[in-house]
């Protein structure tokens, strides 16, 4: 019997005995995280100058999605002990005993190798290399090394989630310039306030699992200060695509407005002693990135208001 079944108990053992469902394997891919990853990858692909055959573009997006899912599955395998402790994660397939940990990690490794190889063979090897780096960064740097050791876990580990727009860009152009680096920095700077907003109202959960998230280690006041600093720094960074000629004036105005609202959300969190503002900021942070990349995509869509900048 697997170690998960031993720690989780007889009920979980029965679940493994009954075998996992296809739906359980889909859950291992973290579909909600995948949606944002795919979207940011698509934005990078759209923002890049040049042409990529639609079939190859679809393959690039598929590879980004599968690579992201693979990293998620390996993360769930490694974190199965702490996932079983936290309320937010205890319903995942491994702690629930619906998927055997060995099957989960095998599934993740096969998908990771498959997505990188397919990206390399179908699109180009720079994009494949970046995808491999993103997966390795998420698994080894964030999950295994940083997550349980330092409150800066999501600051440094956030780089893994910042790769998709760069991968999308590299898929089209075959190189990396200043613009995809700006998109990388945008997601990189967005990640800490996004996760700390969640950590503020889940601090008890993280403390119970022994994860040194900033609110657990430094307290809510210090976390709120950091969130405010990151959102203020993010404000000019979101304008970088316009300054670099990748997006037009409409994007710039909307990005400034959305960034301003993000700062307002952080200020509200600063003054709010309850969880309400943090919950709202977490929800808004997701909307912020979706809207920002939507604007970038629309701005680059030929025939729309800008007809594709640059």
């Amino acid at each position, binding site marked *: 019997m697997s170690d998960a079944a031993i720690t989780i108990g007889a*009920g979980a053992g*029965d679940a493994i005995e*009954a*075998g996992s*469902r296809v739906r359980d394997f889909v859950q291992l891919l973290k579909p909600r995280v995948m949606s944002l990853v795919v979207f940011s990858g698509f934005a990078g692909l759209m923002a890049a100058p040049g042409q990529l055959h639609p*079939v190859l573009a679809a393959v690039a997006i598929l590879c980004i999605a599968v690579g992201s899912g693979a990293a998620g599955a390996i993360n769930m395998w490694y974190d199965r002990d702490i996932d079983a402790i936290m309320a937010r994660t205890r319903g995942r397939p491994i702690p629930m005993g619906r998927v055997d940990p060995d099957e989960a990690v095998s599934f993740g490794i096969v998908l990771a190798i498959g997505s990188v190889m397919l990206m390399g*063979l179908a699109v180009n090897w720079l994009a494949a290399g970046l995808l491999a780096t993103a997966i390795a960064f998420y698994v080894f740097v964030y999950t295994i090394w940083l997550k349980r050791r330092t409150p800066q876990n999501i600051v440094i580990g956030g780089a893994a989630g910042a790769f998709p727009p760069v991968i999308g860009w590299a898929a089209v152009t075959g190189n990396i310039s200043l613009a995809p680096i700006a998109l990388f920095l945008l997601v990189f700077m967005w990640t800490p306030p996004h996760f700390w907003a969640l950590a503020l109202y889940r601090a008890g959960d993280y403390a119970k699992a022994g994860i040194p998230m900033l609110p657990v280690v430094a307290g809510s006041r210090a976390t709120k200060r950091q969130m405010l600093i990151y959102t203020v720094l993010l404000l000019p960074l979101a304008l970088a695509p316009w300054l670099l000629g990748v997006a037009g004036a409409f994007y710039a105005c909307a990005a400034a407005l959305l960034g301003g609202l993000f700062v307002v959300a952080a200020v509200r969190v600063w003054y709010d002693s309850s969880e309400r503002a943090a919950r709202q900021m977490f929800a808004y942070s997701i909307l912020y990135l979706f809207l920002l990349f939507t604007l970038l995509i629309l701005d680059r869509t030929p025939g729309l208001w800008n007809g594709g900048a640059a």
Partner: protein
Amino acid sequence: MTVPSAQGIPAADAGDLRRRRQRARNWALLAILVALVALIYVIAIVRMGGG
């Protein structure tokens, strides 16, 4: 005779559930393999066409 398991599900039903889930997984794997073959075929055609 059916023997109850730890969750109170008769062993025969548990075996049937296991077989059904295994069959569903097999079909999903077949669908993925067929989709992969089709995808690689399409990619090869596009790449050979200069895409």
